[in-house]
């Protein structure tokens, strides 16, 4: 099973999803384990995606991003 960043990690959403200047930090709110295409085999690694909220707006509804669009900048489990 692949490692996931802990809930509360501070991350940047990567281009192209934040344009070319990903300066707004987000915080990982949850991790969702998913089936991407219904074709996962017993030997295949499970897939997951992060639910994140803008650090400056924690009341906002969380949005989902695949791990390749999420870059950790520091860990702050104190949220």
């Amino acid at each position: 099973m692949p490692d996931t960043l802990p809930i509360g990690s501070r991350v940047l959403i990567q281009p192209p999803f934040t344009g070319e200047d990903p300066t707004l930090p987000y915080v990982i709110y949850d991790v969702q384990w998913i089936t991407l295409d219904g074709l996962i085999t017993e030997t295949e690694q499970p897939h997951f995606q992060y639910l994140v909220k803008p650090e400056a707006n924690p009341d906002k509804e969380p949005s989902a991003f695949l791990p390749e669009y999420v870059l950790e900048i520091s860990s702050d489990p104190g949220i």
Partner: protein
Amino acid sequence: MTITTRDQFFNAMANNSSRIIIDKVSVANTAASQWHSLWRATGQPGQGAIPSTAASCDNTLTGGIQFNQQTSPATSYFGILEAMCSQAGTTLEIHDRLAHMGGLSGTSTTAQTVNVDLNALLANDNLANRIGDSNYSDVQWWIEWYTDTGSTSISMIANVTYNDGSSGNLTTTGLLGATRRASFMVALNSLIPAADSGKYIRDVNTITNSATSGSVGSYGVTATRYRGCLFLPVANTRFTARWDDLGIPEIPNESCLFPLVAANNTSTGIVRATGKIAHG
């Protein structure tokens, strides 16, 4: 424009016009300040089909408002729109549906082919006249939902080609909530980044989701041209946009006119409208 005087226009309105009739059922699961298409709402005009691959649209499609086609140099003009809605505060807009596609998935996480390329479609269905300015600045681009996608909020990237041939990515990050409902429309034009300001979209190539929403649903890309609107501030009360409010926009042959609304509540409300398209 072959009608050049007010007298000619008034004569056409009285003696040479096509009647517009709109009578659409209320669409549920809407929200204030969101755009919602009535393409799939039942009533008059009839329920439009969910498109598959990219195609241009014309006046013969079910879902388009019918009007008499003209022989050049005669053409058509939007002359009057009268409407009421059971939800106060609704804005009714009439657009020419230029091209569309559907069947995109809310669970795909790879680039999904859209290929709504107006540049390649210009020879079809009189699009060269229907798009307005040849630089595509009159075209509005939308992501349009046909069936609900899943309950996880995701973002989307639309890869587009601009009028100058360059390409770019438009992102909906932070804009889309959970469970995007059928009829929801998100405008792409306003997502053009500052670095590309002054450019206009001529082609949407692909859409990529940031993650899976949890349900496949169905959505697609639609290109339209705005033709007129009417604000309906009070429920079940008729309001009128006259010729001088509408600006007498030309309605070229083969235009696929359909209604959409800026909703003000949790449903669109029943939309009933009439009007005239003058010919000459």
